[in-house]
């Protein structure tokens, strides 16, 4: 069982996280646990300081990003997103992906068209993130199945957005 990063930061296990507050909580804790505080400490203290600081840094990274935060929330509720093993995706989603990829191939090298496509995909991602927030809201009534599908789709979109970013850099 993975550790609960919400607990680590003293936050309730919910999708809404204020990034500024999260950063402040991280700073507050890393200040105490950082190995610099234990340079003259015992070996046990130094071991713990490294492990704890590493967890805090990893926890910040996981909770800061909406998709990894959602994946973590799902894992805490016993739902695995199985990106590595389960490759079956919704048919409509795959179709949309194919259309986008064809457009990227056609636009290759033309910065303005690549940028327009990137904007469109980014808007689509924002819409999906909003749906993810509502799927994970509502406490016990949260729609975990819906959230799981959205996390898996967002994972695809982020990879595609990175490719678009590379293509844009190349075109410029």
């Amino acid at each position, binding site marked *: 069982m993975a550790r609960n990063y919400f607990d680590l930061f*003293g936050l*309730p296990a919910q999708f809404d996280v204020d990034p500024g507050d999260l950063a402040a909580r991280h*700073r*507050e*804790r*890393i*200040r*105490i*646990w*950082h*190995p*610099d505080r234990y*340079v*003259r*400490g*015992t*070996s*046990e*203290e130094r071991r*713990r*300081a*490294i*492990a*704890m*600081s*590493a*967890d805090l*840094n*990893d926890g*910040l*990274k996981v909770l800061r990003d909406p998709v990894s935060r959602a994946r973590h929330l799902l894992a805490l509720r016993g739902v695995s997103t199985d990106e590595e093993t389960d490759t079956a995706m919704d048919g409509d989603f795959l179709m949309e992906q194919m259309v986008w990829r064809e457009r990227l191939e056609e636009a290759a090298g033309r910065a303005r068209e690549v940028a327009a496509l990137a904007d469109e995909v980014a808007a689509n991602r924002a819409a999906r993130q909003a749906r993810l927030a509502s799927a994970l809201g509502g406490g016990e009534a949260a729609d975990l199945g819906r959230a799981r599908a959205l996390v898996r789709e967002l994972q695809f979109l982020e990879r595609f957005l990175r490719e678009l970013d590379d293509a844009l850099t190349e075109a410029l």
Partner: protein
Amino acid sequence: MALLQISEPGQTPAPHTRRFVAGIDLGTTNSLIATVRDGEVLVLPDAAGEVLLPSVVRFHADGRVTVGRMAQDAEVTDPLNTIASVKRLMGRGREDVEESPYQLAPGTGGMVRIETIAGDKTPVEVSAHILGALKARLEETLGGALSGAVITVPAYFDEAQRQATKDAARLAGIEVLRLLNEPTAAAVAYGLDRNPEGLYCVYDLGGGTFDVSLLRLSQGVFEVLATGGDAALGGDDMDAAVVALWTARGAQAGTPEEQRRLVRLARSARERLTTATETEVDAAPLYSGRLTRADLDAAIDPLIERTLVACRRVLKDAGVPIADIGAVVLVGGATRTPRVRERVGTLFRKAPLHDIDPDRVVAVGAARQADLLAGNDGAADMLLLDVIPLSLGIEIMGGLSEKIIPRNSPIPASRAQEFTTYKDGQQALAIHVVQGERDLVADCRSLARFELRGIPPMVAGAARIRVTFQVDADGLLNVSARETTSGVESAVAVRPSFGLSDAEIERMLKESIASAESDAALRSLREQQVEADRMMEAVDAALAADPDLLADGEREVIAAHLAALKTARDGGDGQRIREAIAALDRASADFAARRMDAGLARAMKGRSITEFP
């Protein structure tokens, strides 16, 4: 009134020696040592009043070793035994080095070795001589012992280079409190002195390395947001560019001695052009002529352009627009070059800061950090949060690198990954750790290979092997692996492929540097005694600070182990001390854990009520 202490004959306690911590800038061209006294940073000069120790080491036929200016004078007359810019070879294998002014021993798979008249020397040994000279300088000047040091490294240094630096310190008998990135040290020097908030860009163009770092300072916390640079670009390349210009104008230099002579003249001409607009160069019969500021600017512009590209990339990585940079700090002697200041100023649209001597600023920051880590500094609220400069990955099927910890992740960092077997009955698993950004393992730096053995025979895919990568605050990697169904465990402190094995370090310690402590057994005993003292001090301090956190009878158990360690420490057996340290560590582990938890609870107190919805 204190009672007079009378020692038994032959057991006179060692005179109370003062102990100092220091910051060391182990540079490509020059090295420095600085310490904090009465709140002020003191950059220590040698007997001749020079603070810069040229990072040059000369090996003599009779086994003598000279370091610094004396060695530098022999660069022209004895070029093959006089090693300069050795930092560029740290943590490198023979095949990494394309050209070198030295005779390199044929590749044997490990770290590169330089053939000298006194035998083959690794860059670690050469660096240890430089560190040893700085240590001696401090101990002679201040009349006390150097008990620990913060040593700076380029932010771009990979694992092997960091490990090599730490090994050099160990060889020189210096306890490393922390390896600190050079640009971070520079920010500490400026930050503490001026108390700023905001984003800093540190532009560090030294003799042989270029680093650019983006740091955020807020609420007493320094955070490295991104780093970039080029581990093989610096003032040396500017000298080479000037020599190339002269060669194009007809300069003739055939022998290594003649080459070196031109390089030295190029450097001094370049330095003169910091204030002058033109200068005469007389290297007859090799070359003579006039060098103008415009000539120099044209020759070095391509090099400066490379540094600016790296700056833009770091800003892009961190998603920070140029306009958000509050200040640019210049570090490294090469930033005295007017063209560098001008072009950096143009890129960032503001004049860069250079009020602290760019040669000293890193040592100044390192000294402050050492003082802080030793607990002397009142500014205990400040904290440095550094990042890992290059991604760590492991080799997966198809010769690809799977990134485990991506570059610019804050350290300490850890990440666990699960693997499984691919053959029935497979009992071992080989793990190859690499560092670098490229997808193909062949394009990355190989850090280490190790095997997890003793996996119970199972069908393919049934084993669950959890490999945990942990990067400590010095940026050094530890890997542990555990087969979760059987509990078989293996932990490896990663010794980089281009690093030295523990056995090699032991051997070097044995044949070590001319010093009173050259005897390896004595050195090892000293290391254990220092560790014992540190441990006893820490436990004493903990007992005094949090007596209420002790469980019933715990104080007695810890006190007994403390007394045992004290006895062992004063005996002469290193192995016994090591065991006593481990025993005290185990006995006080629970207490240490409770103290750390209590520290956190104290800090969170008063927040919880108002902030938890």
